[in-house]
């Protein structure tokens, strides 16, 4: 297996982009990534795109071919593959691209993610997202995604010392970071009060505990590490790629408050990179809801079970903390175009390791991690990156 490097990144701004179509979202992110890698599209050998539900959101399937076509690659007939694993689609597209380059089968590969969610009413998008859980045994009885994560929160708060205020502090921190990220959907800082006074969605989760509905796309370009300096002065090496699965339904998990797939994917990633959690300088985690960030911090090994609330309150996960979490603003403040999220996480880590993250730069960041979750934890991908 060859070493693989990220040589280019590009993200659209995230938000309610009513003026931009699904295909144009992808095109914008792809063009930014090519420009960043100082590369012509004719050099691309293959394309992987993460997308959860274009069928429900814009009534379009066959997304791989569509975006390759509109990226001007139809006449070159490159392989273009859509990857779907709900909110983890982006990371799995990235992982497929890494495997393609590492194997020697492809040279220059684009991994992208795109989701266009605001063309339908909120209730339709809520139902489309519910398809990431077990439709026949969770969705059928009225489970929504906020509802499922709320049941994790109820279980967690019954067993461990996590206060409602500490949970709110996750959102406060992520909005602080998002306010320093030009692509973020929300640029306003908030307070604990903002969260606690927002309407209940599914007890104990309130509106400001939830990531928003977002349009957006992100793309990264991969090359063999040995060739990376042909394209960039600052290649970022993929130190580990890992993936794990678990039961589709939350009720069948070994432990409702632990995402075993995160624990296992992280263990595989640390092993592949030859690293421990102490070596990680910053991490982008899947905070679709505030409770999800609490679980992720623990399941990735940054503290023991039950301690993530205190860690958050003491500022250890803030930009200048011991382990900065979600410097991009996370899903909460940067936005969550589901298929694009995993790729945006990679782009954020690459920007940080290059030292290009501006007002949210983590000083001296050398090793970064991403954790991307599908459903309530039925699919998890973990990646580790380092300066090459």
């Amino acid at each position, binding site marked *: 297996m060859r070493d693989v490097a990220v040589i280019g990144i590009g993200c659209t701004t995230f938000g309610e982009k009513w003026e931009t179509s699904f295909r144009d979202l992808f095109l914008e992110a792809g063009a930014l990534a090519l420009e960043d890698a100082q590369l012509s599209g004719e050099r691309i050998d293959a394309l992987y795109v993460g997308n959860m539900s274009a069928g429900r959101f814009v009534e379009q399937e066959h997304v791989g071919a569509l975006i390759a076509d509109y990226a001007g690659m139809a006449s070159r007939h490159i392989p273009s593959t859509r990857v779907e694993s709900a909110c983890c689609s982006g990371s799995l597209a990235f992982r497929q691209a890494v495997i393609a380059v590492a194997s020697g089968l492809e040279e220059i590969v684009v991994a992208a993610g795109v989701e266009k969610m605001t063309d339908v009413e909120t*209730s339709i998008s*809520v139902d489309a997202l519910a398809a990431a859980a077990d439709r026949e045994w969770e969705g*059928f*009885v009225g489970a*929504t995604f906020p509802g499922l994560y709320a049941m994790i929160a109820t279980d967690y708060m019954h067993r461990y010392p996590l206060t409602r205020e500490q949970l709110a502090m996750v959102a406060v921190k992520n909005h602080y970071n998002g306010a320093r990220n030009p692509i973020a959907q929300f640029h306003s800082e908030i307070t604990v009060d903002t969260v606690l006074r927002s309407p*209940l969605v*599914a007890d104990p989760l309130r509106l400001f505990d939830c990531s928003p509905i977002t349009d957006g796309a992100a793309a990264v370009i991969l090359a063999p590490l040995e060739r990376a300096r042909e394209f960039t002065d600052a290649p970022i090496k993929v130190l580990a790629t890992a993936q794990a699965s678990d039961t589709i339904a939350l009720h069948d998990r070994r432990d409702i408050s632990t995402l075993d797939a995160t624990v296992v994917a992280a263990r595989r990633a640390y092993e592949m990179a030859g690293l421990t959690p102490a070596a990680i300088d910053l991490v982008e985690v899947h905070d679709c809801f505030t409770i999800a960030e609490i679980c992720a911090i623990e399941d990735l090994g940054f503290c023991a079970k039950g301690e993530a609330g205190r860690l958050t309150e003491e500022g250890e996960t803030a930009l200048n903390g011991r382990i900065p979490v979600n410097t991009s603003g996370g899903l909460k403040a940067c936005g969550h175009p589901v298929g694009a999220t995993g790729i945006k996480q990679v782009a954020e880590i690459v920007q940080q390791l290059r030292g290009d993250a501006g007002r949210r730069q983590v000083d001296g960041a050398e090793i970064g991690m991403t954790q991307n979750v599908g459903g309530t934890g039925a699919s998890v991908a973990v990646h580790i990156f380092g300066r090459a």
Partner: protein
Amino acid sequence: MSVPRFWRKIPQRYNLIGTQCTSCERRFYPPRSFCPDCRRSGVIEPYRFQGKGEVVTFTVIRSASDAFEQQTPFVLAIIRLDEGPRVTVQVVVEDVSEARIGMRVRSVFRRIGTEGESGVIHYGTKFVPDVPYAE
């Protein structure tokens, strides 16, 4: 959910018919036709659950998809059936603040949701607090 898709599951939804593996005696609700422990050496047969259990965790859904919007707020819970398996259900209470972890519940036949503009009604099993009848 399409009519055939709902129709296939009527025995399970109306009468809590799950399955059990006769090799290891593990019971499944929702039903599985393949035992994850015994794999191909497992023998699966239908098993009828008594419909009693205990709340493991819960939430109050205040914002739902269209099919459930008229029912909000309602209690959604993961319960552990006395025979072992856990399942996601609605718990019907007079006041949503009554829901508690550890609460005993029993099954009842109820309308689950109304779908689409034609208003197709889905029936199935919900749970209610299992309180002893007064003398």
